[in-house]
């Protein structure tokens, strides 16, 4: 039951066994809880929480603390080296490129994705085919980052500029149609980083559009009507009515996308593997930990990621609270 399943039937059996095992755990807990009658809430409550507390302690809390601890050790994880890993991240030329790229990602993606999403939400609002039009933009959100990367890698495909060789990537074909020479889009730095960022924008615009469209529809009609009777111009309507009303939603969208972008790994991994100066912190963590076997540096990169996420999350939650209130 706890071995590597290799045949299809083994896999399915193991899957059902796992589900049954956890169903049994829940069953036992409910059975014991059923024995308690009357006012013994605390006991039953702790019983209900036991599996969750165990799983979170072992699966999140302990590993998180352990990683922080390990970030102060060397590559093999044996010798304490203080904050050397962190100074490497700030000082080393290669790691600086990683930090620079991460900054590009986090600064560009949220604003551009939100911009496109907001524009589109306004454009298709109350159009005849609104739900269809929205589904088109939203679809990339449902597929994996890996599939999205394959889709865009094909767009960026490059064929050398010689003889009868034809371009098969649309972007390079357009460049050729416009009279230019094909470019190795995924190899030339820093252009390649911006092209990877474009994939993330493509994915996240649908998220921004959905949230902002809901916010726009929630604006009370009488406010809009009052402004209209005052003779506000359409731009004024957007600037002084729509935007202030959806501001909390915009902030939530911006911060949410920023958090997702900080942790982006799949796109870089699938499109370039972090080569050609395209690595970002989340990808560098993986490379250092599993490819270069530099556990200490990998751990430190993960901690840096965590530290960068915290302020954005705190801000996000505060805004959420405010918009809910």
């Amino acid at each position, binding site marked *: 039951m706890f071995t590597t399943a290799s045949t299809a039937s083994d896999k399915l059996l193991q899957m059902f066994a796992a589900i049954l095992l956890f169903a049994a755990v829940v069953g036992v807990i409910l059975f014991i809880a059923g024995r308690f009658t009357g006012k013994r809430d605390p006991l039953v409550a702790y019983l209900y929480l036991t599996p969750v507390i165990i799983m979170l302690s072992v699966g999140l809390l302990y590993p998180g603390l352990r990683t922080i601890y390990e970030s102060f050790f060397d590559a093999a994880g044996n010798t304490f080296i203080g904050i050397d890993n962190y100074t490497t991240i700030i000082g080393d030329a290669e790691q600086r490129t990683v930090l620079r790229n991460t900054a590009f990602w986090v600064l560009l993606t949220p604003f551009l994705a939100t911009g496109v999403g907001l524009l589109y939400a306004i454009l298709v609002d109350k159009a005849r085919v609104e739900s269809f039009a929205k589904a088109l933009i939203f679809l990339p959100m449902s597929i994996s980052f890996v599939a999205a990367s394959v889709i865009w890698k094909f767009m960026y495909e490059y064929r050398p500029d010689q003889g009868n060789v034809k371009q098969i990537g649309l972007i390079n074909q357009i460049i050729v149609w416009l009279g230019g020479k094909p470019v190795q889009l995924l190899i030339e730095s820093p252009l390649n980083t911006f092209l990877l960022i474009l994939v993330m924008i493509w994915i996240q615009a649908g998220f921004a559009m959905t949230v902002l469209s809901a916010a*726009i529809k929630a604006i009370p009609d009488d406010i809009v009507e009052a402004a209209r009777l005052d003779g506000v111009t359409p731009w004024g309507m957007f600037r002084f009515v729509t935007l202030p009303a959806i501001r909390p939603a915009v902030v939530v969208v911006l911060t949410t996308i920023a958090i997702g972008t900080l942790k982006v790994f799949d796109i870089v991994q699938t499109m370039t593997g972090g080569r050609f100066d395209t690595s970002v912190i989340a990808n560098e963590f993986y490379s250092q930990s599993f490819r270069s076997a530099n556990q200490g540096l990998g751990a430190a990169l993960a901690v840096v990621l965590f530290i960068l996420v915290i302020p954005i999350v705190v801000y996000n939650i505060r805004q959420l609270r405010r918009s809910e209130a």
Partner: protein
Amino acid sequence: MTTSTPVVIESPDVPGKKVSAATAAKRKLTSPWASLAAIVIAVLWTLPTFGLLVSSFRPERAIKTTGWWTFFSDPKVTFENYEAVFDPDSINLADFFLNSIVIALPAVIIPLCLASLAAYAFAWMRFPGKNFLFIVIFALQIVPLQVTLIPLLTLYVDMGIANTFWTLWLSHSAFALPLAIYILHNFIKEVPASLIEAARMDGAGHVAIFFRVLLPLLTPALAAFGIFQFLWVWNDLLVSLTFAGSPEISPITVQLSNLSGTRGTAWHLLSAGAFVSILVPVTVFLLLQRYFVRGLLAGSVKG
């Protein structure tokens, strides 16, 4: 997806006609230009996927020598690419597809079961340390997975379950619990106290209340989280790459990513493979849009 009744845009001068702020703002661009801009964005967003979809049905030679846009002047259709990715001797996508399913189902059901219990306790029971525990669990939502991976891997090796589905089931379940508890708790909390009280008066215990009163009401929340988690696990690459290196247990995303790395120019395989991998999420999305969006909005900071 929020669907609204389609409304034909009225001219701005119709007196007394209510318009939304967005509609009003849009008039700046006068309707034809607004439509054009919307169409341009829609085309830009659809074209990349469309190009790869067309390519997945073109013969290998055609894909490698001409652009997919030439398909319309010289249409040649084949299913060979799809046959090739399912070939058991090479890409063998069927096995990885099965792995994805085997990974995803328990990774959805386990956290749902455990989180329901916990959410019930948080919403309707009184016990010391309740607020503190709830805040800790809520805060754990934001822990980036990267922080947990290496110690977890070591732990799994020590437990002797490295390279089994258990590593993925346990990891995905643990990562999902904070969000699941949060969503379910918010939902259970909304159930009117009078319903619970009435059941208590009838002599129902916690177990009976949970199953007879709450569970039927909880379906939308369970669906929203279930669908979100299913797609999250189905689309995951990082956790799978870390724990499921061997092809016996790795999901379809890992195989697709490997293919992109090792055979980055085999576009006939990559295109077909990509579409096989997105078949499930796109179907789920189209059929269950409403729940999907609800889950997505709630789970946006996860991972």
